[in-house]
């Protein structure tokens, strides 16, 4: 009855907002269950707009995992865009789920996936719109248990006051375990505190209210301890050893509106063994686990049949490393050519068997080519352990141009440790060489209209990487480097995009922030910050005001070089890779030494300690 009215009130707002399809629901394959027949109602939140959140694979996996349970239901929640949020506040409409437009506060659990730091204010925005107290300690059983996971949960501290429990690592199994615990607690009628205590005993779960942090005079962390016995000192991440056995959706919601990644997403493998030293995902998602070709083909069949999508993408951190890629690509083509299903291969490593797969992809539809070079010179690529050479790039683009491609994207970072002016100028140098490779391709062979899209982002040092000790360049230095790059990037056929350093600076603060930065996030939100990842909403001034009001120096987190041995806010987490390994990699980076892919020999990163990890290698 209450939901009926809320639904109507939401509906009335839809005539007054920019993109009503974001809130509409009613999509193909959405799961709608009778709430009276389940024990746990789980709201799964993505702290951004619908079209971004719907593109996230992990959310889709967990939506499916939860809805497969007979005793639970899962409904989606996204951050209402500013126009909708303002209307909701004006009309007293609380945050609602997409499926049944039920108030989020009435759910038993609220899962939040943490994909990027700049969505943190959106989490507060959602809690506030839902009428859920922002601080964990102020919540009662009238509120859901708020659980967060995803890559940013590997440094959970900036959110420690707002989240009841964090779940670290792969969520397929642990999400179900947390549901079991909450269900049992509700049935037994135990206190919310007891429920959190029980959650803290689950593998990979961190309950911040059960730990205390103290600080040295210089501001660094002095100690980080559980406040009571039975709470683990170290939280070990969850890992699904066998991807073939892991749950994967066979049917996904097909949105009406165009979303960012509007296609079938098939995760071919998880983890990456390349060991790029800047890459947090490459460290925290270890070890590499592959799905079998049979399982992938079966999933592709079912998903094409259940969605009608016209495109399949093979996704992972490094799809080119999938051991059976040519076979898989070939079989997918065979199977779906008649149904006009295109295959696209994102984040393709240019040092893999690009050529073979390119010839395959071309048969159905031409998709863009992307090369993540990351740095302009071989010296710097050695420092970051990006095992790609200039010749790899040039031979790949030559093949691509000869194969009829004319559009190439190149990704770079700047502000990397040890970077010099020569390294920076290596970026325009590479772009020039790509342009030349195009014009060296005979006129009749190459496609017309060369487009080299070159983009450079500001390096952000991340927790659990060999660069976690490194300072980030200051905004001023970034801007100087940017000017140098812009001047050198005026090349015909090349479009150059760069990212403003202010957002990256804040990312650097929160990706390595401690508990004291939580107050800043709250203050920034109170000052009106939300959708900070959207350039039209982002206000650096408001953020700086928040730091000032809270007496927190952002440079302490972003621009400070950390000593070996410093206790980090994330040190209590065992992410698989050991600190000894990360430091060893840091030292090798400083010497410009590369570390080979661990598939070619174990590098002792620490994953061998996990049962079932690194099988057969």
């Amino acid at each position, binding site marked *: 009855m209450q939901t009926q009215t809320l639904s109507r009130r939401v*509906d009335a707002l*839809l*005539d007054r907002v920019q993109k*009503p*399809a974001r809130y*509409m*629901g*009613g*999509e*193909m*394959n*959405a799961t709608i269950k009778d709430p009276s027949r389940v024990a746990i109602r789980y709201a799964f939140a993505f702290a951004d707009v619908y079209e971004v959140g719907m593109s996230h694979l992990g959310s889709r996996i967990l939506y499916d995992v939860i809805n497969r349970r007979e005793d639970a239901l899962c409904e989606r929640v996204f951050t209402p865009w500013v126009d909708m949020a303002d209307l909701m506040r004006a009309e007293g409409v609380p945050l609602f789920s997409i499926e049944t437009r039920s108030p989020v506060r009435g759910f038993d659990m609220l899962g939040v996936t943490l994909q990027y730091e700049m969505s943190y204010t959106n989490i507060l925005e959602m809690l506030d719109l839902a009428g859920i107290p922002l601080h964990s300690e102020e919540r009662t059983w009238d509120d859901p248990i708020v659980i967060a996971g995803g890559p940013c949960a590997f440094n959970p501290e900036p959110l420690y006051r707002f989240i009841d429990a964090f779940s670290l690592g792969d969520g397929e199994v642990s999400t179900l375990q947390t549901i079991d615990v909450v269900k049992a607690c509700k049935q037994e009628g135990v206190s919310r505190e007891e429920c959190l205590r029980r959650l803290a005993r689950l593998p990979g779960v961190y309950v911040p209210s059960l730990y205390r942090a103290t600080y040295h005079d210089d501001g660094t962390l002095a100690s980080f301890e559980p406040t009571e016995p039975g709470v683990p000192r170290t939280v070990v991440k969850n890992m699904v050893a066998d991807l073939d056995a892991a749950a994967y959706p066979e049917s996904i919601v*097909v949105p*009406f*509106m*165009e979303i960012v990644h509007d296609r079938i997403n098939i995760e071919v493998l998880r983890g990456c063994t390349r060991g790029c030293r800047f890459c947090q995902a490459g460290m925290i998602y270890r070890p590499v686990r592959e799905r079998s070709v049979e399982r992938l083909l079966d999933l592709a069949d079912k998903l094409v*049949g*259940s*969605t*009608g*999508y*016209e495109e399949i993408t093979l996704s992972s951190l490094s799809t080119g490393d999938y051991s059976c890629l040519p076979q898989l690509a070939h079989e997918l083509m065979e199977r779906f050519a008649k*149904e*006009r299903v295109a295959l696209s291969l994102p984040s393709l490593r240019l040092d893999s068997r690009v050529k073979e797969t390119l010839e395959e992809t071309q048969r159905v*539809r*031409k998709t863009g080519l992307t090369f993540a070079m990351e740095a302009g010179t071989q010296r710097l690529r050695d420092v970051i352990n990006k095992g790609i050479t200039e010749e790899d790039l040039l031979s790949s683009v030559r093949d691509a141009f000869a194969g009829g491609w004319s559009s190439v994207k190149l990704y770079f970072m700047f502000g990397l440790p040890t970077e010099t002016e020569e390294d920076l100028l290596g970026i325009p140098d590479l772009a020039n060489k790509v342009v030349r490779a195009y014009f060296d391709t005979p006129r009749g062979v190459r496609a017309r209209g060369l487009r080299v899209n070159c983009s450079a982002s500001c390096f952000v040092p991340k927790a659990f990487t060999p660069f976690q000790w490194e300072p980030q360049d200051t905004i001023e230095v970034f801007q100087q480097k940017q000017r140098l790059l812009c001047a050198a990037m005026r090349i015909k056929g090349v479009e150059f995009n760069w990212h403003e350093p202010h957002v990256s600076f804040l990312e650097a603060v929160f990706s390595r922030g401690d508990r004291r930065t939580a107050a800043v996030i709250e203050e920034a939100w109170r000052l009106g910050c939300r959708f900070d990842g959207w350039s039209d909403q982002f206000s650096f001034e408001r953020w700086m005001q928040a730091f000032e009001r809270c007496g927190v120096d952002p440079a302490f987190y972003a621009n400070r070089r950390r000593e070996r041995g410093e206790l980090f806010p994330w040190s209590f987490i065992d992410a698989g890779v050991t600190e000894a390994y990360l430091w060893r990699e840091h030292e090798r980076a400083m010497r410009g030494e590369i570390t080979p892919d661990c598939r070619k020999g174990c590098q002792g990163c620490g994953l061998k300690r996990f049962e079932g990890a690194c099988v057969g290698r």
Partner: protein
Amino acid sequence: MRMLLQFAKTDTVRHLGLLDLQRTMQRALRRSGLPVRYSSGFNPHIVMSFASALSTGVPGDAELLDVALEAQEGALTEAECLARMNAVLPPTLPAERVRLVDDRFPKLGAALAQAAYSVELAGGDAARIAGAVPDYLAQSQIMALRKSKTRETLVDIRPMIHDLTAKTAGEDARLTMRVSFVEAATLKPELLLSSLCTFAGAEMPVCRIRRTGLLGVAADGRAVPLIDL
């Protein structure tokens, strides 16, 4: 062979734009397993067209989609097509009827002559507007300002109104109308309503428009649902 599919764009999804609807129908058709025809080229898509695009924000009870099929006559039944479409469409876009026609059947867009709407008027001057309908229709000429993207023209809309009735319920009222819908003379329900309000000396009320039908004109001059033409 072609499949004429009559479906409803329900209230929940009234905000769907034409592109959203196109994508959804393409995907539903792909899932249906019906022998659809694809266009050639790098981005092959299913050959289909809507009889008329329906504005964002307006629901429709009997919208029409025209789909080209690669099938011989008799290979499929209408009931089978309808069942297959309903199995793959979301409940918010239910298929209501299917008619299989020959490739030579006239294009829906060309056969379209009239559209029917219902307009819910909430409160305010609703009753006064409803009461003015008989006198409004008694006029031999109704001049109204028709706006296009580039210009405004004063036209007589009386010949474009084929049917207009009003019903009141308490403070609210409902108008039911059937108006011309051809390229040279399309009367939008909003324009009719504003002209009626001016005539009644009333403020434009809060209103909800829904399209209830798309019609063609039969040989005997009667307006019939397009799918039955």
